[in-house]
C-alpha cells in the first residue's frame, strides 16, 4: 500500500466515471458516472490525508465536501429529470438538447 496505489485507484474510478458521463444518453445514467467520479476524488483525498498531511483536517473536509456534492447532485438531478419528464417526456440528454432547437 502506498500513496501512488491509492491515487491510481482514484484515477481509475474517475476515468471510468468520466467515460460513463460522456457516453450515456440517459440523464440518470450520466449521474451515475458523476457519482463514480466523485468516488475517485474521495479515495484520492483520503489517501492524501493519510500519507501527506494527517495532522491537518483539510483533506477530511474535502471528503465531506465530495459526499455532500454527491447528495446534492443526485437530488437535483432527479428533480430535474422529474420536471423534464413531466413537461416534455424526455429523459435523454440528446432529446433535451433537441428541445432547444
Amino acid at each position, binding site marked *: *500500500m502506498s*500513496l*501512488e496505489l*491509492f*491515487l*491510481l*485507484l482514484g484515477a*481509475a*474510478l*474517475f*476515468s*471510468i466515471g*468520466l*467515460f*460513463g458521463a*460522456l*457516453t*450515456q*444518453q*440517459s440523464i*440518470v*445514467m450520466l449521474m*451515475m*458516472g458523476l457519482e*463514480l467520479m466523485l*468516488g475517485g476524488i474521495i*479515495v484520492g483525498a*483520503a489517501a492524501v*490525508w*493519510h*500519507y*501527506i*498531511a*494527517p*495532522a*491537518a*483536517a*483539510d483533506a*477530511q*473536509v474535502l*471528503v*465531506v*465536501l465530495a*459526499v*455532500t456534492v*454527491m*447528495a*446534492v447532485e*443526485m*437530488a*437535483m438531478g*432527479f*428533480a*430535474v*429529470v*422529474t*420536471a423534464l419528464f*413531466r413537461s416534455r417526456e424526455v*429523459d*435523454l440528454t440528446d432529446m433535451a438538447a433537441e428541445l432547444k432547437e
Partner: protein
Amino acid sequence: MLDDLIFWALALLAVAGGVMVFRFDSMARATYALLTSLLCVGGEVLLLGLDYLGVVIVLMMTIEMAIMAVFMVMYMMNPAGLMPMTMVHNKRGAAVICTGVFAALAAGILLAPWPARRGRSSADPTMDLGLSLMGPQMLTMMTLGFSLFATIVATVVLATRRGRYDRFGDDLKARAADDPVRGGVGR
C-alpha cells in the same frame, strides 16, 4: 500484509463494480453495481484510518443508491434489462478521452515528487474533523449547509406539480388540503 490484501480486494471490486455499472442492462443491477463500487470506496477510506468518514460514506451511499434505484426503474425505459439495448453515444471519442485522462493522471501520480508525511494523525481524526469544521473551516460548513438547504427547496419546487394554491384553494382558506391521498396529521 493483511492491509495489502484488503486494499487489493476492495480496489479490484471497486473498479469492477464501476465498469459493470455501464455494462449491465438491468437498471437495478447497474445501481447496485455502483453501490458495490462506492461501498468499496468507503472500505478504502476506513482502511486509511478515517473511521467516521468511511462509515458515513457506507451509510449515505446505501441510502442514496436505494433511492436512486427507484428513479432508475421509474424513468428508464428498460428497467429490468429484459430487452438488451444500448443507449450510448460517441463511444469511441469518450474512450479516447478517458484513456487520455487516465494516462495523464497516472503519469502525474507516478512522476510527481510527493512530499514526505508531515506530522502524524491525532488519536481521534473524527475530533479533528469536527473541530476543523466548527473552527477554521466554518465557512465551508456554512456553505454546505446553505447549499443543502437550497437543494431541498429547489428539488421540491422542481419536482412537484402542485403548490399551496392547488392544495388549499385560491384563497388558501381550505381547512383540509385537497390531496389525492390524505396524510396523517389531519390538516
